[in-house]
């Protein structure tokens, strides 16, 4: 029986600075051993525990789509492990344990329209989902609207890709920033307000939302008012995690462990759980 | 004792009714024989929960830092010294507390009692003056109270509160113990190897539960050095890390510890914690002529600097 705490080894292939403030970097990683790569079969919405040996482990949502080679994670520099990750250079080694958690319910989303609402650097796993859909079976899904808001233009992740996506006619991409900035010709406004403006039709549509607590606090009521029922509003949650496999007792919300029963939850599922902060 | 309790309840009731305090922190009857438990009373009708006996061992000053309310607090001698210390260290304003001082004849050591009874369970207990009556399912014993007091109480020099707004009951005679450091002097006579071996043997039982730290009124740091980043001391029960934790904590408390014994009483593994703290207490007294928690005006030597501070020992 394989020890679930032993990471597999990855090499840092490329480091991309995503944001103008240097706080978010994307790490493109490749497996050292082919059998490890084959064993790591994941779906968008899942996460992995990345190890910086000597510093520790931390959970990160998969930013890459399983249709892409290797793994990509976008890391916000906030604590011990993320700071250590930010210091890594190409060629260095990290460890990975995963894939962990429940993915987005892709089968359930087929044949539906999708409204993807993201704030800040929470865009990562949603990017994975959209890319996966575009790469595998775009025709199996209905209309796809993406609303992605950040404080200022420098903070958008995956800028080149967003540029390409804005040119596609099978996606409706709306980018917004909090306050007017010279040179920005896109939308200006907080995500909840812009969402109200866009007023997507809830019929046969799923809303997939990811963002900081403050954004969720004001965005979820807008979705409710627009008529999105809790069963069709999907969130991805964040908690402090250690084992990632439902053993260490840390990441629970009531009886559910975010690492094992999430991080993807519908609002209907969350309504059954006590309010321990999103 | 009954009079004292009545006086305590009356004083608490008056303080709450007259809104002189928002909260009374005292002791209520515990759920086991010879146990009391800290209680928090906010309504005058609840003051009858307050009690007082030889099991009121906790240092209630622990609950003071970080509170904004006006608090009436039951304080033994050692507790009152801790309150003085907390006011010196600006964790508390003097005006915030109404100190209900209670002269103390020492508190029982429940771990010592357990050992004397060889682990047998006490089902009934009664304090009878200078004796303690204990009854279990297959025994009945009457033991002298003095033998069952916690070690810190046996050498306590401040049974009467040093700072108070109201004194409940009668002042008591201070302990006749001639030398509170006798145990330490005896230990000092051992060789370094013997002392280190003893320290190692004791600390090897430590399970890093932090009961000692969390029971101590002076361990109020929001982030303790064992939890901080960068990690100064390892978190595991590796012996070296654990020894270092206790050594550093003892030094953090030097000049502040009032030997209330809360740390040792909390420890579930019977680790002899007081040796370290008492030794440092002795050193501070000998080097700086200072005893913790006795005067609001005098400040702890390790937190202040005066040009005339003794320094012959600095080499």
């Amino acid at each position: 029986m394989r020890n679930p705490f032993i990471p597999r080894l990855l090499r840092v292939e490329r480091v991309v600075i995503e944001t103008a403030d240097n706080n978010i970097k994307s790490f493109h990683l490749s497996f050292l051993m082919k059998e490890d790569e084959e064993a790591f079969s994941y779906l968008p919405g899942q996460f992995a525990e990345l190890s910086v040996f000597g510093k520790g482990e931390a959970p990160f949502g998969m930013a890459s789509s399983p249709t892409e080679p290797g793994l990509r994670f976008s890391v916000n520099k906030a604590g011990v492990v993320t700071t250590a990750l930010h210091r890594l250079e190409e060629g260095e080694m990290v460890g990975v344990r995963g894939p962990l958690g429940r993915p987005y319910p892709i089968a359930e989303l087929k044949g539906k329209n999708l409204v993807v609402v993201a704030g800040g650097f929470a865009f990562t796993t949603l990017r994975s989902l959209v890319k996966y859909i575009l790469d595998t079976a775009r025709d199996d899904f209905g209309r796809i609207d993406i609303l992605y808001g950040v404080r200022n233009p420098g903070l958008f992740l995956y800028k080149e890709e967003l540029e390409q996506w804005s040119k596609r006619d099978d996606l409706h991409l709306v980018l917004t920033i909090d306050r007017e900035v010279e040179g920005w010709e896109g939308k200006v406004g907080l995500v909840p307000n812009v969402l109200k403006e866009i007023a997507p039709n809830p019929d046969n549509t799923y809303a997939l939302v990811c963002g900081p607590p403050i954004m969720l606090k004001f965005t979820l009521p807008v979705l409710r008012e627009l008529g999105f029922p809790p069963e069709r509003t999907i969130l991805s949650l964040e908690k402090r995690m250690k084992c990632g496999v439902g053993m260490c007792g840390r990441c629970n919300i009531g009886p559910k462990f975010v690492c094992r029963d999430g991080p993807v939850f519908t609002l209907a599922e969350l309504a059954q759980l006590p309010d321990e902060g999103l | 004792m009954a009079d004292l309790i009545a006086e305590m309840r009356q004083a608490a009731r008056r303080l709450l009714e007259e809104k002189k305090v928002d909260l009374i922190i005292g002791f209520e009857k515990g759920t086991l024989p010879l146990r009391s438990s800290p209680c928090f009373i906010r309504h005058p009708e609840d003051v009858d929960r307050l009690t007082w006996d030889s099991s009121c061992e906790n240092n209630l000053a622990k609950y003071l830092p970080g509170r904004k309310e006006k608090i009436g607090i039951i304080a033994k001698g050692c507790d009152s010294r801790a309150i003085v210390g907390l006011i010196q260290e600006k964790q508390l304003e003097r005006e915030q507390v109404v100190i209900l001082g209670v002269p103390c004849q020492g508190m029982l050591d429940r771990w010592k009692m357990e050992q004397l009874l060889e682990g047998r369970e006490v089902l009934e207990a009664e304090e009878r003056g200078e004796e303690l009556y204990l009854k279990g399912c297959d025994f009945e014993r009457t033991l002298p109270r003095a033998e069952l007091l916690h070690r810190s109480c046996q050498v306590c020099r401040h049974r009467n509160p040093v700072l108070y707004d109201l004194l409940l009951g009668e002042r008591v005679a201070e302990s006749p113990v001639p030398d509170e450091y006798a145990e330490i002097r005896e230990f000092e006579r051992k060789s370094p190897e013997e002392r280190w071996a003893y320290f190692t043997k004791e600390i090897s039982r430590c399970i890093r539960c932090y009961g000692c730290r969390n029971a101590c009124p002076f361990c109020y740091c929001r982030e303790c050095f064992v939890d901080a980043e960068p990690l100064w001391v390892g978190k595991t029960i590796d012996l070296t890390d654990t020894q270092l934790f206790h050594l550093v904590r003892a030094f953090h408390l030097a000049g502040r510890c009032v030997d209330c014994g809360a740390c040792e009483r909390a420890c579930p593994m019977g680790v002899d914690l007081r040796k370290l703290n008492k030794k440092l207490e002795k050193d501070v007294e000998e080097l700086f002529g200072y005893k913790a928690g006795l005067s609001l005006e005098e400040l702890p030597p390790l937190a202040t600097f005066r040009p005339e501070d003794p320094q012959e020992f600095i080499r």
Partner: protein
Amino acid sequence: MKEQMKYLKLSKEEMANLLDELRREFRVVAPVRREGLILFEEIGSGKEAQLDFGNSRKSPKDFFFPQMEVLFSYQLSDNELKIEEPQPEPRKTVIFGMRPCDARALLLLDKIFLEGEVQDSNYRRRREENIILALGCTHPRRTCFCTSVGGNPFGTEGIDALFIDLGKTYVVEVLTQKGEELLRDRLSEADEESLKSAERVKREAESSMGPQVKAKELADLNLLDIFEDSFWDQVHEKCLGCGICTYLCPTCSCFDVIDEKTDSGGERIRLWDSCLYPLFTLQASGVNPRPTGRERMRQRVLHKFKYFADEFGQPSCVGCGRCVVSCPVNLDIRRVVNELVGGKA
């Protein structure tokens, strides 16, 4: 595989010899008196084993879920990283003197470490290597409440052979194949008289149990109903937030994972942690879903008696009473449970 129920007999005087005999083949762990405490330790001779005691200060969960465990070590050389898993020597161990509550607790730990989607391979190995000879509780303590949480002073769950103290002799109830293989050639069969005495001892023990704890009633309460109850505002106030109750508890299993560096590499270590510590759920962003003692006490009580009970049909508590005895402020979980239920009755 049907388990053979066999009843064997041993005089108390022979106990030390039995343990010494077992020591020739196995590591033997038993309750010993160490500096006035009863603790489970490997014994150097059968005489060290205590036969007359309440329960150990710390639970014996250490032998299955150690307080500190190296998960793996890594070596760094020339930008090459090698991970090495510790390969411990297999060590069949006989643990004598475990109380039925602590043995039952292992079945609850199994739910966390063995019965999830992922299994802890080290924990599994230790479960397989250890043989449990339990000692039934002839005189349950007032602080014991095993019968309130699905246990019994002579419960047989998780036990390979149960020793029943009749005063001068033990009747030994052999419960598993492991237990039978260990004892069948070392002990003689029990007689009718002893069996009758054993039944009497069991009945008396069960009827002597102290005050009941309303664990089942708590599990039956509606979660969202009780979660925001004002009950939680006061119940935590005296709690010091130390880890004593969680560390002594035979069913608590929360842990932390840290990396420690050595000269050329390092180790990843798992160690016990407590949901009562303020940093337990603190996120790097500074957000803490359980910022005060109120939320943390609520988590402890509800996890043990509600969340775990809902998922597994029994609370994460075996009623050993260690937390009741050792809490420095006598914050009695029995009272907490009963008051919570009482307020909602």
